[in-house]
C-alpha cells in the first residue's frame, strides 16, 4: 500500500488526528461531570493523563521510522502536533498531582519529589520536555538553526526513557503495562540505530 501523499496528510489526516488526540481529555471531562470515573476519580484522571502523555510521546517517536520505512514523508507535518499533545497531557498529569494530590503545598511537593524516586524521574521527564515545547514553534526553529534545534530535540529520547522508568517504578508488583511500553520504546530506539536505519532509510 502506498503512503498517503503530503497533501492528503496535511489536509485530511492532520485535522482528524488533532481531534482524535483531544478525545481522551474530552472523555475524562465528560466522565467527571457524570461521575463515571470509578471509586477513585482523581486516581483515574492522574493515571489516564499520564498514560496518554506516554502513548503520544511514543507515537511522536513513530514518525521518523514510518517516514523512512514507508516513505510517508508527509507524516513530518504531524510530528510537532503529536509532541505538543504529549506535552499537553503531561501538563494535565502534573497539574492533577500539584492540585489534587498536594493542593499547592510546596513543602509536600518537594518532599514527594525528593523522597520518591519514581516522582523524581517523572519530574525530570517533564522538565526535559519544557525546552522542547518552548522551541517547538517555527520562530525558535529559525532562531536556533536546524542543526542546533535537532540536537536539542534529541532530548526527547531521554524524556521517553524517563517516562517509562517513572511508570515502571510506580508499580508495586505487576509491571506488565510498563513492560509493554518499555518494549515499544526499545524497538523505536533500535530503529534509530545507524546500522538499522541505513537498511530501510
Amino acid at each position: 500500500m502506498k503512503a498517503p501523499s503530503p497533501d492528503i496528510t496535511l489536509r485530511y489526516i492532520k485535522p482528524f488526528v488533532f481531534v482524535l488526540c483531544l478525545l481522551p481529555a474530552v472523555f475524562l471531562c465528560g466522565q467527571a461531570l457524570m461521575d463515571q470515573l470509578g471509586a477513585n476519580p482523581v486516581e483515574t484522571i492522574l493515571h489516564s493523563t499520564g498514560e496518554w502523555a506516554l502513548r503520544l510521546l511514543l507515537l511522536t517517536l513513530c514518525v521518523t521510522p514510518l517516514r523512512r520505512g514507508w516513505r510517508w514523508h508527509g507524516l513530518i507535518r504531524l510530528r510537532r502536533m503529536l509532541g505538543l499533545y504529549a506535552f499537553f497531557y503531561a501538563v494535565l498529569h502534573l497539574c492533577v498531582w500539584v492540585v489534587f494530590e498536594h493542593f499547592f503545598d510546596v513543602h509536600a511537593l518537594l518532599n514527594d519529589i525528593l523522597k520518591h524516586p519514581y516522582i523524581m524521574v517523572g519530574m525530570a521527564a517533564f522538565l526535559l520536555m519544557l525546552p522542547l515545547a518552548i522551541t517547538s514553534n517555527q520562530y525558535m526553529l529559525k532562531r536556533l538553526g536546524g542543526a542546533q534545534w535537532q540536537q536539542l530535540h534529541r532530548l526527547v529520547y531521554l524524556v521517553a526513557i524517563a517516562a517509562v522508568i517513572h511508570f515502571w517504578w510506580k508499580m508495586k508488583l505487576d509491571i506488565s503495562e510498563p513492560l509493554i511500553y518499555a518494549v515499544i520504546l526499545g524497538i523505536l530506539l533500535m530503529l534509530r540505530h545507524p546500522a538499522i536505519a541505513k537498511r530501510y532509510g
Partner: protein
Amino acid sequence: MLIRSSSKIKSSEITSHSVYQARRDFMRDMGGLALAGLAPAACSSTEAEGQSKKTQEKRFAHLERSPFSTDETPTPHSKITHYNNFYELGTGKSDPAKYAHRLRTQPWSVTIDGAVEKPGTYQLEDILKPHTLEERIYRLRCVETWSMVVPWVGFSLGDLLKRFQPTSKAKFVAFETLHDPEQMPGQRSLFSLQWPYAEGLRMDEALHPLTLLAVGLYGEVLPSQNGAPIRLVVPWKYGFKSIKSLVRITLLEEQPPTTWHLMAPDEYGFYANVNPDVSHPRWSQAKERRLGGSFFENLIKQETLPFNGYAEQVAHLYQGMDLHQHF
C-alpha cells in the same frame, strides 16, 4: 408542587438497601436482555421477585450495633465492592469484582492450629455459631493513601481465639488466605506475590477488642471481592494487614513471616500501623483520600491520623517502641 422536607419523610418510605440492590440487579439484568432485544414485558415481575428473594437470603437477621463504630458516613456499597486490592483475583482495582464469581465460598473450613489446646479444622458454620454478629463501622486506610468507611459485620477475633484456648507459648498469630490457583486467577499470574498470602499479629493485637473477623458488609454476606467468607479487619493498620478469605489461623511463639514484608522489607513492616509521620518509599502517608460521595467531594486529601484515629484505644500496645524502626 408539594416539596416535603427531609424530616417529614417517614423511615418506611426510604428504600432499604436490599430493595435498592434488587432494583439495581433487576435493571442490570433487564438492560442486558433489552440489548439483546429479548425483553418481553411479562417476565419482568417474576425476575424482580427472584432477585429480591435472593438478596433477602444474603441479609443477616439481627445485628448488634457496636460502640466501636464511627459515625462518619460509610463509603457507598458500589465503591467498597469495586475498588479492591485482592491480588489473588488480579492486580487491577476492578479485577477482584470481575473474578469474584470464581471463588467458591461454600463449603468453607478454617484450620486453627499451633499453640492452642483445641487445634483442628472446623466448618465455617461451626466457627460462627457461638458468636453474636455485630455491625461495626470502621475507617479503612490503605497504604496507597486512599481510605474508606466500611460497615463490616463480624465479631472480635479475640473471642474466637479464646474458644480454642491458646497455650502460654502463643505470642503471635499467623493467618493464611486460600491458595487455589484454579479459583484465584491472580495466583497463576506471572507477576505475583508468594502464595498463600500470609499475615500476622502480635498476640495482644489479636486479642484487642477492635480486631475483627468480618463475615459481612452493609448487613449482607461478604462479597467475594472483599474477602469472603471470612476475613480479618485491623482498623488501625494499613489495609494489607487485614487478610482476606482466611483458611488458617496458627498461634506461634515466634513472629511469623508476612507476604508484603517478604516482598519488600523496606516498604512494608510487620506492624504496619497507620502513621502519618513515617513516609513510605512510594507514598507520603501524611494525607489520605477518603473515597465516597461525588467527584467533587474527594478532590482534596484529608489529614491521616496516627493509628488511623484509633490511637486512644491502641497506642498503649506500642509504648516504648520506636515506631520509625518498627513501621
